[in-house]
């Protein structure tokens, strides 16, 4: 179970990265951001290695337990943030993304880590395709949500004329809104593909594209929510604060679909069901 060791190293590196980024948020000391980037980047590499090792050991993409799903999602979240950083000078977002990723891996760390075998029925190439698209889409929505939170803080500070302190360290409103827009379009595209491939896989496995199980219903609801937001943005020029609030609400729905359904409701997407 060397993958578990790698996973634990990841938790440590994310914790260090979180501390460094929070230090950067408080002190605006550029070295802190540098350290944060290094630790988070290092954590990401180790995390990828952990997932690959687990993939080899299990023989399928490691998303069959809540531990695996949380870990996989955290890895994609960090990866998409590191990618975003290449395009936008938004180092400070690390102070929001890193703690979130840390929270996810800590939660994953306390859950049972044994590998749950995948029923033969579900073994298919659709699994990695469906899950990867859906998860990357959700990770991108998480970034939109982070950008939205920072937007609301910056907007509040500027509107209330408290522009001398924290506001100096946050990105400009326009950059945050642009991230919101791009994350929204990309995330929506990915989620759409995720849902469609999920349906195709369901058809192969169970003989029906859509079975109205809670996960599917909530995914559809989330998809509709983002479709509305995208429409509002494109057709009636919602931007700034409204778009930021929507991105946060939308991600709330993502979280519920991702976690709430599994923990509170039942259906084929809930991991325990697979064991029966």
């Amino acid at each position, binding site marked *: 179970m060397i993958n578990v060791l790698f996973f634990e190293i990841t938790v440590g590196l994310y914790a260090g990265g979180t501390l460094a980024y929070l230090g950067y948020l408080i002190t605006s000391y550029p070295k802190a951001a540098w350290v944060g980037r290094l630790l988070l980047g290092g954590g990401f590499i180790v995390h990828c290695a952990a997932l690959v090792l687990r993939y080899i050991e299990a023989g399928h993409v490691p998303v069959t337990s809540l531990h695996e799903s949380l870990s996989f999602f955290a890895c994609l979240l960090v990866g998409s943030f590191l990618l975003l950083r290449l395009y936008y000078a938004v180092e400070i977002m690390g102070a929001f993304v890193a703690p979130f990723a840390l929270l996810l891996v800590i939660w994953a760390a306390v859950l049972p880590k044994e590998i749950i075998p995948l029923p033969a029925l579900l073994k298919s190439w659709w699994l990695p395709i469906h899950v990867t698209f859906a998860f990357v889409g959700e990770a991108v929505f998480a970034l939109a949500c982070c950008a939205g939170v920072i937007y609301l803080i910056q907007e509040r500070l*500027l509107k209330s004329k408290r522009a001398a302190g924290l506001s100096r360290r946050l990105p400009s409103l326009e950059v945050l809104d642009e991230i919101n827009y791009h994350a929204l379009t990309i995330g929506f595209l990915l989620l759409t593909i995720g849902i469609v491939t999920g349906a195709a896989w369901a058809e192969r496995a169970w003989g029906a594209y859509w079975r109205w199980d809670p996960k599917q219903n909530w995914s559809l609801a989330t998809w509709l929510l983002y479709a509305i937001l995208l429409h509002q943005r494109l057709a009636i020029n919602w931007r700034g604060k*409204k778009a930021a609030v929507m991105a946060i609400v939308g991600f709330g729905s993502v979280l519920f679909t991702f976690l709430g359904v599994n923990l509170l409701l039942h259906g084929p997407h809930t991991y325990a069901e697979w064991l029966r």
Partner: protein
Amino acid sequence: MKEIILVGLNYRTAPVEIREKIAFPEETLTHYLKALKGLSSLTEGLILSTCNRVEIYAATDTPEVGVEEIKGFLSVQHQLPLPAFEETLYVLKGEELVRHCFRVASSLDSMVVGEPQILGQIKEAYRMAHATKATSTLLNKLLPRAFSVAKRVRTETSIGNRAVSVSFVAVELAKRIFAHLEGREVLIIGAGEMCELAAQYLVREGVSTILVSNRTWERAVALAERFKGEAIPFSELGRALLRADIVITSTDAPNFVINKDMVVDILKRRKNHPLFFIDIAVPRDVDPQVNSIDNIYLYDIDDLQEVAAANIKGRQQEASRAEGIVAAAVEQFCRWYQSLEVIPTIIALKEKMERIRQKEVDKMLVSFPNLSARERQAMEDLSKTIVNKILHNPITLLKKANENADGEPYVDTVKKLFSVETE
């Protein structure tokens, strides 16, 4: 032992009437540097001349003579009798000089603390002195150190990027609403000095067009011409508000020129693209209610002043952090300077002892010519061991003192006790 001295004056010690007479024009600086190098007591020299300060850095074996020569140099070169400006001069040496140099480069000694120009100026001064071969060991260490201290201060504190003037605060805020200012259009309504200053800063940041509107058409045209912008008739203000991203108002109108309904309507027509109002008129030109609309940001003169005041306070905090960086670097430099002397002292001490030992052993061997080879060797070994044991403590102490940056008194003591000289 050579040391660095500094003779100079700045905006605190000398009024502008004297500063302008003592300043060295940049074009002929090489000529002055050569003259400075020609002074008999100096081995290195550098001239820093800006509108706020004139400072001459030099290395010399005889500090007192050096200072007098530099004073004379200033007097002769500027054809000004020394008593006319002598009391505005300050003379610095040792640790104090190093601190001063680092603080100047880091813009902590500037009239406007944190202003970025001084670093460029001092770099240029060093470049010219270096090119004229007027610098050597000491200044070639001091100045590059000063630059790296300045760089650290700049990157590790936010002392340099806090806007403390109202016009500059406006620009700073614009950059926090818009990702970049290139290609933006700015609308000026009215006229006034602060208005123009803010517009100037914005042009420097790359805004593409300045629109000017004024109740008096001629004045609008005149101001527009100055910024190579566009004059807009006052009646067409609404159309201009559709194009602009930043609006600076400063009319002498008694009532609001821009009210909430107007802005709500315009915002819809500009597809919710943000609009930043900077109202520097008293009484105000823009209804404060405008600030409550999403995507609209309004700062009046008091708001801007408050931000500027907060920035000044922040800058003071940053300055104390910067002083910490400087202090650490000063200590490091002084240690380096002392090590210049400690190592030669140790070597001189060892050499002197070896000479004494050799001489005494030789004398002894002459007195006892019949000693066997083994006995001669034993005498050599014995004398070496005695010398090494005696020297062990003083040398360890010197080395340790060197590391702890308090070597100087020991160096002096050792030199006196053993009467050794270093070059």
